[in-house]
């Protein structure tokens, strides 16, 4: 596994030491997973969810939601009505 590349996909930055350690651990784990190849799954539908759920519909009625101030309370950086993030577009 290319640990560094996969970590970048998940927006995680690793140092060299971490890449080496995780690399060997994850390779051990992945080789353990190879036992799944023994299972004959020809014609088996993948199971993503255990309940036979159908779509759940409800009437489209407007209900009160959380107050803006309550939602913004947890934002690490904010302006009166907005969450602030570092510049996204180069200006």
């Amino acid at each position, binding site marked *: 596994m290319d640990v560094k590349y996969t970590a970048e*996909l998940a927006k*995680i930055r690793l140092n060299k030491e971490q890449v080496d350690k995780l690399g060997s651990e994850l390779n051990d*784990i992945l080789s353990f997973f190879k*036992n*799944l190849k023994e*299972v004959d799954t020809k014609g088996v539908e993948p199971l993503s969810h255990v309940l036979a759920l159908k779509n759940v519909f409800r009437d489209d009625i407007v209900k009160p939601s*959380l107050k803006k101030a309550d939602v913004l309370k947890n934002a690490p950086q904010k302006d009166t009505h907005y969450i602030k993030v*570092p510049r996204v577009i180069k200006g």
Partner: protein
Amino acid sequence: MKLYELSAARLISLLEAGEIKASEIQESVQKRIDEVEDRVHAYATLDRNTETGSSKSAGGESVLDLKGIPVAVKDNICTKGVPTTCSSRILEGFIPPYDAAVINRLKKANAFLLGKTNMDEFAFGSSCETSCYGPTHNPWDLSRIPGGSSGGSAAAVASGEAILALGSDTGGSIRQPAAMCGVVGLKPTYGRVSRYGLIAFASSLDQIGTITKTVEDSALLMNVIAGGDENDSTCSNEDVPDFTKSLEGGIKDLIIGVPDEYFVEGLDKEVEEAVNEAIKLLSGLGAKVERISLPHTKYAVSTYYLIAPAEASSNLARFDGVQYGLRRDAEGITDMYKVTRSSGFGEEAIRRIILGTYSLSSGYYEDYYLKAQKVRAVIAGEFKEAFKKVDCLITPTSPTTAFKIGERIEDPLKMYLSDVFTIPANLAGLPAMSVPCGFCGNNLPVGMQILAKPFGEKTIFKTAYAYQENSQWHKRKPSL
């Protein structure tokens, strides 16, 4: 009388008889926390603010009345106004603006909320050692782990630092710590309890459940938390029986299946003996015992550790330093994400995010994630067939008793294999309970696991209650 040692059912009957007041129970438990918390470290946050703690809100007329019984809640369940961190640095300072569905229900039933219990970071672990707050200690032997990930909840109930507790179970996180701390842990059927406000780990496997001193207390707490919820579309509208009514009645003619694949190499001899003795006891009470085979059990760990991290890597994408929790400053937004996530997540969280990202990534998806989903279908099908022949299954909960702090943390694969007997129930969505069934020579508790078909909690309650009525293990207390 040490009130903190009593069960909720016993306390409620004392309250109803007017022999004690709720405030006396609360004081007894708070005093017990002051006495032992330094050594046990069951809590991530203690809520000493009686305004949020006593929560005298809506309730009153509810038939489901916990009458001020103190309850501890795992730190991945959102509590309005009380920090909720999943024992992770990345949620540092997060104070939910709303209550999880189960917290709403507890408040309506007049529960007294004590605080948030320690856990493995984001429930990634089987020992509580991946918590950013440091490990919880097993009340039976402080040098050992309490199990995980709901180790704080199990240790709190075992040590008298709570009367009842909520945990969550994705691959055994309620049952395994319950077994290792000598208490009762129930993972209900997937969809039995609303997950609204439970910070998601693996959405198709996660389920909130109970950690209690007795089977009866589990039924009491389930009556409060179970049932449909419009805020969780995966929560079932299946009728919720009064679980306390399914306790009595005995187990004559109940058919218990004992799967051979759970009594294999790696299972501690003393654990095996304790579970076999328990099965013998149940057989003596009139149950019929049949050996059965679930040949795909050995593939459950691989299946789970592909599916769960895949779902986790998606669920944890939301922790990016923008809306809540930790943010580390950086020049551009992508760098901010990376610096924040790399410093906010602990080692096991990073390991699972990378593993999950890999199994979902292009070129590997079919060989890993999709294959695991197909094997999951085979495992679920195997259980379905088994429950045509038997009413419930009995197995050990964990292959060993509590291990030493530090013993497995450097070997992730070995840690993953600790969950070998609990994972299958999550893959198939089954209800499963761990019940104390003995002690090993070193005075560490052993748990047996009882599994039933989906929405078959009544069978579990009936079986587990019959066992507790005829055994004494759950009455032993750790000396702290």
